[in-house]
């Protein structure tokens, strides 16, 4: 039974990686938000299975917290933001999507390589997933860099935080509860601030194109 659970966690990790690539290849903002919610759900599922296998009670709480925050609340806020800002356009990318995917593969190989010696040392039941989590972090980071609109950058940031949470779960069975609460609070406040920001930016510039935000240079 335990081996099956471990394989299930590995499966969720692989699914997470797939979602990270799917977000990278997405053109529509609404599907990005839904993919983010799905990613949150995968992380919750993986955390619950790890909690079950390792009998760590606090992981159940942290899975519940993630469910409430990242699957329900934050996507709801993002949907409302999209509706009020009226942004439904196609996502513009700085380099075209096939090249983005190829660079993504290179990042995945890099992340796996980096994480391999650490996985060998880890005493966790699911050591291999640290590499996948690191790969997801790097992919979200790339998503932030290659988008030219504000909202996908925000979602990339949130996805990065998701991947980090998964890394914590798989490598160390989560962090102490107080730290996790603090991180959750930070994420929540961050999303609020970003929402306020997006309003300010769209009021000021009549658009959420990041290219408007590139005028501060020294000349």
């Amino acid at each position: 039974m335990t081996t099956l659970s471990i394989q299930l966690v590995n499966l969720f990790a692989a699914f997470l990686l797939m979602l990270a690539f799917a977000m990278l290849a997405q053109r529509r903002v609404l599907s990005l938000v839904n993919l983010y919610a799905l990613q949150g759900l995968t992380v919750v599922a993986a955390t619950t299975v790890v909690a079950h296998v390792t009998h760590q009670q606090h992981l159940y709480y942290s899975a519940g917290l993630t469910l409430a925050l990242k699957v329900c609340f934050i996507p709801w806020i993002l949907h409302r933001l999209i509706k009020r800002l009226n942004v439904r356009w196609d996502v513009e990318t700085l380099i075209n999507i096939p090249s983005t995917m190829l660079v993504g593969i290179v990042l995945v190989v890099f992340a796996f390589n980096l994480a391999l010696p650490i996985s060998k040392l880890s005493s966790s039941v699911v050591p291999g997933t640290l590499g996948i989590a690191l790969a997801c972090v790097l992919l979200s980071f790339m998503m932030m860099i290659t988008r030219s609109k504000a909202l996908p950058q925000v979602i990339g940031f949130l996805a990065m935080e998701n991947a980090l949470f998964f890394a914590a779960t798989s490598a160390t069975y989560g962090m102490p509860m107080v730290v996790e609460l603090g991180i959750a609070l930070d994420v929540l406040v961050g999303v609020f601030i970003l929402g306020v920001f997006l309003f300010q930016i769209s009021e000021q510039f009549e658009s959420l194109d990041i290219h408007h935000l590139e005028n501060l240079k020294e000349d």
Partner: protein
Amino acid sequence: MSPLVLVLISPLVGALVLALLGQRPYGRDINVVFSFATFLASAFLTARIVANGSVFALDQQFFIDSLNVFLVTLTTLIGFTTSIFSRPYMRIEEERGKMSPNRMRLYFSMYQLFNFCMLLALTTNNMGILWVAMEAATLTTVLLVSVYRTPASLEAAWKYFILCGVGIAQALFGTILLYMAAQRVIGEGRNPMLWTNLNAVKFHLNPVIMSLAFVFLLVGYGTKVGLAPLHNWLPDAHAEGPTPISAVLSGLLLNVALYAVIRCKVLTDGALGNHFAGYLMIGFGLLSVLVAAFSLLRQKDIKRMFSYSSIEHMGLMTFAFGMGGPIANFAGLLHMTVHALSKSAVFYAVGHAAQKAGSQIMDQIRGLMKISPTVGWGLMMGTLAILGMPPFGVFASEFLILTSAMRQLPWATPLLLLGLGVAFAAIFSRVQPMVFGETNVKRLPHAPALLPVFLHLGLVLMLGLYIPGYLNTWFLQAAKIIGG
């Protein structure tokens, strides 16, 4: 109540009160009162540390030792003087229509909350809470940077949020790896996230995990320190926000981030036993000094110029801590103190100067001495202080750093001298026509707050000539803790 708890509670209560009352005319004064209360509490705390040595609090979750005690007092002092400075400055800004009453409330309450986050980060023993506090400090200031709602400030705040957010995420990964290394070694019943526990077992932490963890922690917290090549957000954020915010960001938040890096470096040095962490810090520090010095030449906005100067000084400090050894560590700690004091003094003077001229562009500020000798002399003295002229304290610390570098890393010394020299030339040549010569600035409707400027400069001067006994002891003890 323990003074430590008072130090933390006072800004929290202040934030709540000012969230309700900040827009009233006496809101500014309430801000000063709360900052003073925090300062008093930290003075009591310091007195207790002087008497009794290091202190734990709240089941070991908080820890004050010689490394962070002077930083706590420094933070509360500069928080207090900045709130004094905020009084006339924000009043003038409000009268000029750049701030609305709601935004004043936001400004004051976020200011107190920001102080709380910094103090939390400095006093906590828990590496996870350190991360949370650093991220919270970023979040509280993001809205403050954009408070003027101009396109430039929105851009600056956005960059600040995104780049620092990404950086902090890397630091979170580093913290996770640190936790992983700790779990393997620290037994049951002892919290593996507490720095004191980690410090006790640092020689047993796994080197592979710790080296990767330190890289992520350095990149993450280093982004907040403003190390090149991760410094892009700094000039914008420090230049576009209100000047009091620039002062605390440059003076205090960079210090807190560097403090976080130092705590991690201590653990890494113990785990690895070689100079890997030190070399990384030396590399980043040197790069920052050079990049900042050469970027200084092209600046037209005065606050951007001084923020590049902050990057340069933080690079110098990182270099010093990277070198390690008792003298370099002592010099780094002294530099943290005097840089915070002089940079905030400079920003106070710059703030009023820019208000007089109506613009932050240096070509448009001329001849301050004619209209307002106090602001003029404040700016001149502050600039000389920050550039490392003797007998100000910055000269002492820079001298110590350079002599250690000559002894340990001779090849780096010419580069450092080059960076410092270029910065001196660039800044001095820009400030001189601003202070002397024909004037084009006007008087301010309210008296500028110049007590903070001269108070800070006085302290820097004193530290250049004489370091009080207890401060000396703390620096030496902290230098030993940092080791290397």
